[in-house]
């Protein structure tokens, strides 16, 4: 067949020189390499004791953020559930009652919010879909467990605690961060 492009380059020389036919030079060459590695620095990270550096934008366990005042941001709009390709998110919405303003930011909130971590594929689409900057994925990993019922994570495991807020600012695109600095910019135009 004629050449389809003008960039063809034949690789794969198959003739062995007589030295190569002797087996031994290549074998000794290989053995030299393995021996060299024997004394090189080991790359292993002993996991439970040492942890490998995670990227800050790693898509691990979810968190439901609170706002600056400590109220839950989620308004149970259901966009994350719709955006979830695994259909792993379920929630039940409820009206905010009087006196709960410090608990929930909007009038509607998620009474229950469950993610089935065994279904979840950690694609980050829920994070993209959330209009309220409520759900984020974090660089924590979801621990393994013995029973499958344990993996339906409710609000008790998902909502960040007041004492121990989780910083997710780095996850947002530079564009968002820029935007936050300069409110006059509008999207894309």
């Amino acid at each position: 067949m004629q050449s389809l492009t003008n960039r063809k380059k034949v690789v794969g020389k198959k003739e062995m020189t007589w030295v190569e036919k002797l087996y031994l030079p290549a074998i000794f060459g290989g053995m030299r390499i393995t021996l060299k590695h024997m004394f090189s620095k080991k790359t292993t990270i002993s996991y439970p004791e040492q942890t490998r550096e995670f990227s800050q934008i790693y898509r691990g366990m979810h968190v439901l953020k609170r706002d600056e005042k400590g109220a839950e941001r989620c308004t149970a709009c259901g966009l994350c559930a719709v955006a979830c390709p695994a259909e792993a998110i379920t929630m039940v919405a409820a009206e905010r009652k009087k006196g709960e303003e410090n608990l929930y930011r909007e009038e509607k909130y998620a009474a229950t919010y469950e993610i089935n971590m065994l279904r979840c594929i950690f694609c980050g689409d829920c994070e993209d879909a959330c209009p309220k900057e409520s759900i984020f994925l974090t660089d924590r990993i979801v621990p393994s467990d013995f029973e499958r019922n344990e993996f339906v994570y409710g609000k008790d495991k998902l909502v960040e605690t007041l004492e121990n807020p989780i910083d997710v600012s780095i996850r947002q695109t530079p564009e968002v961060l820029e935007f936050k600095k300069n409110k006059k910019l509008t999207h894309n135009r």
Partner: protein
Amino acid sequence: MNEIKTAQTAVAEKDYTTLNLGPTHPATHGIFQNIVKMDGEIIVDAVPTIGYIHRAFEKIAERRPYYQITPLTDRLNYCSSPINNMGWHMTVEKLAGIEVPKRVQYLRVVIMELARIADHIVCNSVIGVDTGALSGFLYVFQQREHIYEIYEEICGARLTTNVGRIGGLERDFSPKCIDKIEKFLENFPAVIKEFESLLMRNRIFMDRTIGVGAITAERALNYGFTGPNLRATGVDYDVRVMNPYSGYQDFDFVVPVGTSGDTYDRFMVRQQEMWESLSIIRQAMDKIIQMPEKVFHADVPEFYLPPKEEVYNNMEALIYHFKIVMGEVEIPKGEVYHSVEGGNGELGFYLVSDGGRTPYRLHFRRPCFIYYQAYTEMIKGAMLSDAILTLSSLNVIAGELDA
């Protein structure tokens, strides 16, 4: 039944051994079954059965909005997920007529070429493992970990990346990520050289691979081969050159081809392609550095999610946001085919849209599915060990095979 067979009749009938290779045989890496008929150690016939991880991708795709198909494509050829992601995004962009800025194209090229390297690393090192040389596998896998680190900096995941969106990437390369790419470009050549010197000119390896699982260019084309496996037969068909996408026409690289389409050629072609990929990444990085920063998506508010803060404050952005997430974007009617050069060959997306929320029909042209059917022909008359090497050098990825 009382079957009495004397030695003479057994010989006369050629009493073949039937061996069941798979579905859990260690060499079938993914999962497929080959019922192999053998005369001693020579394979007389093979009957492949596939579908052991059939997951109904094409059916799911008819039920999911466009952006939710990206995670699906991850799981096609999971050794090079980003290529699939990008291919899918480009298909939708082609359908919707979205022009992507040059810088985004180059960023995509960097990601795709990294994925190609990762894919070829898996394939070639597994050839090494199947010949019994395990150490090389572990040397190059360390480098693959560095590729994963880069992915992680780009999108936050290691294997199933779900990287990018329709219209661009979700975020720009961070400085840390660029550092890591530079470091990778610096370190990788030495490792790959070492790997090559472990295997490439080792006579045992050459004896094992030369002439094994060979296929002629004619048969390969008739069987629909693409990618490295076709190039090993001497046909320089490469989608990146023939139908350039994502700015591949701006890069200078050669298309390595083999001569006889055997395992050694496939190995060499993949090996050389890694070098070419490295050079493409180098060129792309040089180009990216000269371009204005912070351009990482096309200016298409109706397809590309607006920044969160704006959603909260701006009515127009909010509407777009809801529309995009609900999948109610305005997609034109029509049918489009777009192909990219995946790790194993031409990965095509044939998309029929009726203007609705989801694709009306999405067909994946999965290179593995297409060329794996030649396997029977390729191993006839070979030995059992050859069959296994041929299989690993074809790099059949079960996810792509069965979809």
